[in-house]
């Protein structure tokens, strides 16, 4: 009859993991391709409004970002809970926006300068007052192509 080997301990064969690195590398490459490096650390928090007629922001190198919102928890003691503007890595006032845009434009390649775009990432609970001020500053700096950042909604 069949032999049942009760005494001999049968070890489970080890799972072959030689292809695991390849799997992980595939994942890695996927993420490297679809994501973009975060250029700034956000110091303000914002939830952009949603809209149906959004367009994709092309050519990230031409785009300058302006963030508007309430300071994050970390900075709320120092800066207060009011709406703040963030340019690059620092908090800024409306009066600094124009200089910032001019400087950013100067840093761009000359051929790209006319195509400069400014993306406004503004919290949806903000008041229009501060946005209007920024828009005026952008007009003064001749940065006329702007993009109101918004999430796509059906």
């Amino acid at each position: 009859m069949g032999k049942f080997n009760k005494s001999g301990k049968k070890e489970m064969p080890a799972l072959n993991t030689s292809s695991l690195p390849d799997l992980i590398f595939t994942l890695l490459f996927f993420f490297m391709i679809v994501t973009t490096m975060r250029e700034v650390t956000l110091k303000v928090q914002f939830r952009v409004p949603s809209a149906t007629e959004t367009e994709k922001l092309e050519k990230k190198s031409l785009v300058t970002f302006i963030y508007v919102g309430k300071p994050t928890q970390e900075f709320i003691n120092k800066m207060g809970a009011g709406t703040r503007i963030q340019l690059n890595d620092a908090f800024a006032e409306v009066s600094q926006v124009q200089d910032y845009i001019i400087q950013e434009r100067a840093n761009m390649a000359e051929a790209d300068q006319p195509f400069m775009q400014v993306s406004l990432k503004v919290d949806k609970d903000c008041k229009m007052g501060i946005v209007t001020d920024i828009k005026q500053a952008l007009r003064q700096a001749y940065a006329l192509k702007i993009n109101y950042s918004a999430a796509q909604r059906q």
Partner: protein
Amino acid sequence: MAKGNRKVPDINSSSTADIAFLLLIFFLITTSMDTDRGLVRKLPPPPEKDQKQTDMVAKKRNVLIVKINMNNEIMCGDSYITVDQLKNRVKEFILNENGDENLPELSEKNIPIFGKVMLTAKHVISLQNDRGTSYDAYIGVQNEIVAAYNDLRNEVSQKQFGKSYSELTEDQQAAVRQYYPQKISEAEPKSYGGK
């Protein structure tokens, strides 16, 4: 000594997975996947310093005034409306199919591909907001106005070419854009009463 073909021992590769994991986690943390989308708009150039404040006098019937107040209520023309109604109001205004006296005047315009057409070429949509208006409401209104234009462009593309606007060639798109140019004017900011 036996001259057997000695095998080179395999390099232990069991830690490659860990190294790859570390890299993966690094990229997951430092990158963000958000695809940036948004409403594209063009601002008017700043007023010249020595420019006189002469407002361009547009005929009343050619201007559709959309106002948003600090309570996010929308006024279109001279009645309060909701955001959902705005798109149809704007479309009706731009089209003026029946040559209504109170809607913008129709004039003949020569456009490549389309030839001579009757359009409300002089219409302007004037958007005014208060400093206290919420950004969300403002984007909502902007979105509806752009949606109205996109709808009209799609309709005319369907009629002329049998395709939607996004499927047209560059030249055709340019012609359609001339057919329905976006004319949204934003008034110089004013603060109407209080904070």
